[in-house]
């Protein structure tokens, strides 16, 4: 079965240009060889344990699956029939290759990683400011065919304005907090949840508490702070390499000078109105609470000088990471040196912030660190197959069970040897028969190893959104912006696009989920159902009158069967089955009014689980 002809041979025999974008001619042949080897190993294991691999999915299902997975969009409804009729036996690998090298692929990867990073953000302001900047930056990385290790290196070492440098996303998402950054670096890039070792040795894995803190020790000098006088308001990621502690304890003389400068009416007492607009304004009430011994509502010079100095456990002043002593919560604990737990890689002394983070990036992306490739391969496999070799994808081990370890190792080796080439990995996996099988529900209590069939999985919010735009005939932002620019330049254009992107944001909030969540934990919820069932927008856009997509179909196809087929192709990218056709015909007769019946059909398909699933 794995005798797919090699690409150069095809070009010779068919004499047609196979690829829309020129790609190194030798590469596809090699990816198909890896795909074939993956299938050989997988199928042998599945058969050995008593399972039978499911047959390949139909061309229509494959087209929808691959287009959604690789570009977040539905295939155009008119392309479904064309693809089915295309006699070329390599049409599937051609399609995959075209999609993987499209700009939409880069954009879809950027959206995916935006969700991975910001779903767990602990600095909430990052969610408003950072995503568009991050998305633009990440799209560019994929467009430039940046390898995964380089992308991760940028994410770990970035500095600068969060509205200008999208690579600051992860650092900003956690406000530069060392412990959070250690936890997320490990979870996202290594698939290891080492943060469980924050307060105690890891409950199930072999990690020790100190190892978590050694990882955090790569980050103690990262600061995220508001940028002064910037409009719109923004933050910057900076390094703090010298302790600022010296500056924090002013001498009594300095305090006296300051006191006299502020005490405008010279009554020897500072009150709130005198410190307005000074640096003390924000903290003055607190100072009063702490220092106003005679309760006269003001601070005398004595009271002012006696204010307790800031304590010494202020993390903002620390340029090293401290592991708190759990038995002495008042004490800040021991200073910890950076060590990378997975390889034991250490840092030499005297490194500044960026050097430390660069060193961590080197350790993380080193070929000696097998977790780096494993995490990405397992995640990518899970995106495409609905389930990883090791689950959950962000909690892989080291003591977890791995399904099909040989296949997993093979893919990890290839990914590492390719210099962490992301597109190549997508092309290999999408090129396997394992990816292209029919869906079948799987009983998790059954002992049959996974990947004998495909799993239906829930579309991500961006995919549902794009699909809805397509089905309802709403122009996407870029198209709309372009047409607007022609008509009315300037302000209104911005307003329109802003309103539109606000709509998208609301939709993403309603339908969004953390893409690291296992499929079985992703459930629809009532507000989502209510949106699809009742929202005024959808109600208006599925009307049979006016200029909606449905109205156009009904005008163009006076025969009900043709119109039903067109509606199915539009919404579900496939033809109706015989029994569906029968149900629809009966329904139209029962209702008696063609327009109303077709509105109900559109409504039903948009509200179906199939529309929300990758099948």
């Amino acid at each position: 079965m794995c005798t797919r002809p090699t690409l150069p041979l095809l070009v010779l025999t068919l004499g047609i240009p196979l690829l829309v974008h020129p790609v190194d001619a030798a590469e596809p042949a090699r990816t198909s060889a890896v795909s074939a080897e993956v299938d050989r190993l997988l199928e042998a294991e599945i058969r050995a344990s008593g399972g039978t691999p499911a047959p390949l999915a139909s061309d229509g299902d494959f087209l929808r699956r691959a287009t959604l997975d690789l570009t977040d969009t539905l295939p155009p409804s008119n392309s479904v029939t064309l693809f089915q009729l295309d006699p070329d036996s390599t049409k599937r690998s051609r399609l995959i290759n075209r999609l993987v090298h499209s700009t939409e692929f880069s954009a879809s990867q950027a959206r995916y990683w935006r969700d991975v990073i910001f779903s767990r953000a602990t600095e909430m302001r990052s969610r408003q400011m950072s995503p568009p900047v991050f998305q633009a930056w990440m799209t560019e990385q994929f467009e430039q065919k940046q390898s995964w290790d380089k992308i991760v290196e940028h994410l770990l070492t970035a500095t600068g304005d969060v509205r200008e440098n999208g690579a600051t996303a992860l650092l900003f998402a956690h406000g530069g907090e060392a412990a959070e950054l250690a936890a997320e670096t490990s979870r996202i890039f290594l698939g290891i949840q080492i943060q469980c070792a924050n307060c105690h040795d890891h409950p199930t894995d072999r990690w020790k508490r100190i190892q978590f803190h050694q990882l955090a020790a790569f980050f103690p000098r990262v600061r995220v702070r508001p940028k002064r006088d910037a409009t719109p308001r923004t933050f910057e990621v900076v390094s703090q390499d010298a302790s600022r502690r010296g500056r924090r304890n002013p001498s009594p003389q300095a305090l006296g000078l300051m006191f006299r400068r502020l005490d405008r009416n010279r009554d020897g007492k500072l009150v709130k109105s005198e410190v307005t607009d000074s640096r003390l304004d924000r903290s003055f009430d607190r100072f009063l609470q702490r220092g106003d011994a005679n309760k006269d509502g003001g601070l005398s010079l004595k009271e002012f000088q006696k204010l307790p100095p800031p304590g010494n456990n202020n993390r903002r002043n620390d340029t090293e990471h401290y592991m708190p002593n759990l038995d002495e919560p008042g004490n800040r604990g021991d200073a910890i040196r950076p060590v990378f737990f997975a390889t034991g890689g250490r840092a030499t002394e005297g490194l500044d912030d960026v050097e430390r983070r660069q060193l961590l990036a080197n350790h993380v992306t080193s070929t000696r660190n097998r977790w780096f490739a494993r995490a990405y391969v397992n995640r990518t496999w899970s995106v495409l197959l609905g389930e990883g070799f090791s689950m959950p994808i962000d909690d892989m081990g080291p003591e977890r069970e791995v399904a099909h370890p040989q296949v997993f190792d093979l893919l990890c080796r290839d990914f590492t040897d390719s210099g962490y080439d992301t597109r190549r990995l997508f092309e290999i996996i999408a090129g396997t028969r394992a990816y292209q099988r029919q869906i079948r529900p799987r009983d998790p209590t059954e002992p049959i190893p996974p990947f004998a069939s495909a799993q239906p999985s829930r579309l991500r919010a961006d995919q549902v959104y794009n699909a809805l735009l397509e089905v309802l005939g709403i122009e996407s932002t870029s198209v709309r912006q372009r047409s607007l620019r022609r008509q009315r330049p300037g302000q209104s254009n911005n307003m329109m696009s802003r309103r539109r992107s606000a709509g998208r944001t609301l939709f993403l909030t309603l339908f969004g989920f953390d893409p690291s969540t296992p499929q079985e934990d992703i459930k629809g919820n009532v507000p989502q159902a209510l949106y699809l069932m009742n929202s005024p927008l959808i109600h208006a856009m599925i009307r049979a009158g006016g200029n909606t997509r449905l109205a156009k179909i009904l005008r163009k196809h006076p025969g009900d069967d043709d119109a039903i087929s067109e509606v199915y192709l539009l919404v579900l990218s496939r033809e109706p089955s015989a029994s569906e056709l029968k149900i629809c015909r009966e329904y139209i007769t029962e209702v008696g009014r063609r327009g109303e019946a077709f509105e109900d059909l559109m409504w039903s398909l948009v509200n179906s689980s199939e529309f929300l699933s990758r099948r």
Partner: protein
Amino acid sequence: MTDFPPDTPRTFSRRQVLEAVPATALAAGTVGLADVVQVEAEELKKQGRSMILLWMAGGPSQFETLDPKPGTDNGGPTKAISTAVPGMQVAEYWPRVAKTIDRFSLIRSMTNKEGNHQRASYQLHTGYVPSGSVKHPSLSASIAEQLASPEFALPAVVSVGRTTGSGFLGVDYEPFTVNNPGQLPQNVSVPVPARRYRRRLGLLGRLEQEFSGRGGKTVVDKHQKLYKKSSRMVLSKNVAAFDISEEPDSLKQKYGETSFGRGCLLARRLVESGVTFVEVVSRGWDTHFDIFERITTLSEQVDPAVAALVEDLETRGLLEKTLVVWMGEFGRTPRVNSRTGRDHYPRVFSAAVAGGGVKGGQVIGSSSANGSAVADRPVSVPDLFCSICHSLQVDPRKEHLSPLGRPMKVVDGGKVVQDLFA
């Protein structure tokens, strides 16, 4: 709400019978005695108990709430004030709660080990520490599973603000999230006449069979359940419970015209109309800096709302069967840091409970003089959860099978804190 006159809460009206009977039976004119009897049984079940969780997201400081230590280094500038019960004091930021303290049991000896927001929130919602292999149901789902009537039109679990989900207990007990408390939730108005709506739903159900037969059965079954639940809700008159506009202004002011205040008022309305579990979330308790300023703002929203809720429930005769729990995911460090804040501290923290048979006006346990440890009567998370189950007459040892076939109890371990109950 006309269905539930305030003077006769949760009485049984003919209209409610009609509400609860399947729409198809109504349409066909086949409402028989059996249906009515069944509805009545469900109604009785509904008259059971419910719970309101007031969740202080971020981890409230015990020193600035229920366990003040004035005059000590760790206590900071926070003063203590007297309450309605002689000898019981709370922090100065809680004057309204202080006046209603005779309805509350304060637990000052909560103790736990999780100091990370996500993990601790998960644990204080589910009773279990997070584990990679299984998504535990939240306690709200386990409670609803035992108490809620499956025929009730509104969601069994409502959360004002995001919360932990129902885990493997599934769609029926998944919390319905309300983001703008007091207003009707978005998209509950049906855009076509009810008859046509039901007909559409019928078509959808028939068409889903194809995908079900082609390998999507699991997905379709889940989806159908969700749609059944959602459509029953929008077609029901009960949905008006979400709209607080008809409540008197004086009452709204008592709760406070804040998001949290409206959330608490909504919670009372929902519980009154038969919802089993309502969570109201207050955000911003993660006070690593400027704690004494921020606690003032926070308590100005939460203090009147909590007091008004308990009084309102009592006035309506609902407090006896409604357990109110106030807590967050952990407490905060005894030592005030140099940013005038307190950091995460799970070793000892406080919680408050009222109603549901809880004895008011008492303190359970205590923390040490410097606030760094439990001095007396430690209460673990499972202990608290067992006590909640006891109050609601829910079986804490009932087992559910996880998707991997492992039986899991509602609460694993722990003992009821008997002193809590009268």
